[in-house]
């Protein structure tokens, strides 16, 4: 169990959130609470870098969906970067791999935007 740390920066295609630590029942509200402060313009893309997220449970998935809804409401897109294998497996089972754009690394994601 590792504590959650979220850092935000501006990328070429819009805001980039680096999520470091477990995204679970206890920590997911942090990401959800942060979302309203993330300003997105139509056509931008919200990028979530998950390279340092070792664990994500159903509450974490719920927070990712909240991020998706936030981006959609702003007319923006959403992309996940460097999704760890165990989380990618969950996303495939629940069908969310079709909902999020998924990129191997940040460079690909921000170029693709």
């Amino acid at each position, binding site marked *: 169990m590792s504590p959650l740390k979220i850092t935000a920066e501006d990328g070429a295609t819009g805001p980039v959130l680096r999520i470091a630590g477990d995204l679970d*029942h206890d920590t997911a509200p942090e990401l*959800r609470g942060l979302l309203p402060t993330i300003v997105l313009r139509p056509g931008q893309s919200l990028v979530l870098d998950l390279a340092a997220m070792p664990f994500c449970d*159903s*509450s974490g*998935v*719920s927070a990712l*969906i*909240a991020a*998706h*809804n936030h981006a959609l409401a702003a007319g923006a897109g959403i992309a996940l970067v460097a999704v760890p294998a165990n989380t990618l497996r969950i996303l495939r*089972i*629940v*069908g*969310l791999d*079709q*909902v999020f754009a998924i990129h191997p690394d940040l460079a690909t994601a921000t170029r693709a935007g």
Partner: protein
Amino acid sequence: MSCTGPGPEEAGGGTAPAPTFADLLEDSPEDLYDNAPCGYLSTLMDGTIVKLNDTLLGWLGLERKAIVGQLRFTDLLPVGGRLYHETHFAPLLRMQGEISGVALELKRADGARLPVLVSGVVKYGSTGTPLLTRITVFDATDRRAYETELLRSRKAAEESARQARADRARLQQALAVLQQSLLPSTLPEIPGMEAAGYYHTASPDRLGGDFYDVFPLDDRRFAFFLGDVCGKGPEAAAVTSLTRYTLRAAALHDPDPVAALTTLNQVLHERYSGVDPRFCTAIFGVLEPSPDTGHVTVLLASGGHPPALVLRAAGTADFLHTPGGLLVGALPDPRFSAATTTLAPGDTLLLYTDGVIEARTGPDRSSLFGDEALRAFTAEHAGSARTVIAALSGLLSGLGDGLDDDTALLALGVPTPASTSASTSAPTPKNTP
């Protein structure tokens, strides 16, 4: 708890030869006797009062001449105290020669009762014959008030503990009723099929987020579903309840599995859209038995749920894949994927929630059970719906704290004609005469 004044019948006895400072202050033994902060009285062995001090007279509110030689000690006591005196106080005093700190009440002239603590000592003559009894009486009003207060607090504590127990019992009853709304207490009889379920909740309030149900659609077909609501506790249970009844109602309106999941998605998305999205994964399906062949056609759809397993009579197990189906309730316009299979006699359809494939196994509880392990295990235990559920529940209860998530299992099987006989369906063959 004893009064160490001079004996009553010696009160007029000799004076100290050399006055000390204390003697100057308490120069009169009579005064000390009569006005001591406790009551004194002396009785003959039959209880007749022969002497008592002013303090006690004042407490009783009686004239000395109305008492001395006229009353016995027991005449000063109310009925209950008299009884206690006869059964405890007097016998113990006779036996031991003394008794101390007995709580009694004295009757006052005005009818009021004075709570007292009574001690007594028998005075013996030189030949050892008991002559009289000396009794000291302490006013125990304050002490009694304190005891009453203690008693009152204890009663209040007992009352609130009783109330808490009653509240807990009522809450448990309410939870049990709610739990019933989440899960069927028994599965219905499906003609030509056997159904078995298993449910484990990791939540201490027993309100889980996993659910399943089986119910008739018409006189021929049955519908079933099994799923997992995101989250835990009462909030998840509320979604579970909404999900169960939505699916039941949707199926009666249109039993097509994709249509039922689509309706559920609309309901959940409308109810829980916004900052707190709630969703579930679920498999919904319809069983259509064919009376001619004894086979059952299964049509199902999955919304983001791990694929069902089909266990064949031959001892194989395979996933019935439903790729691409999206979890239910999260997004406004999802896609659900359908699949179909046919169950022949001896085949079983197994639905499960991810609690089972995420159960932690191994000596350090660090490795996950996994979907391939589940497939292999069920292939070994294929046979009937009850057999596979019994084997899996045995496996899961063996995991103990490795099973940290809710887990639900539902097996729907077509029995082989032979499996109705005990000798073939029992795990170990029995000797039949």
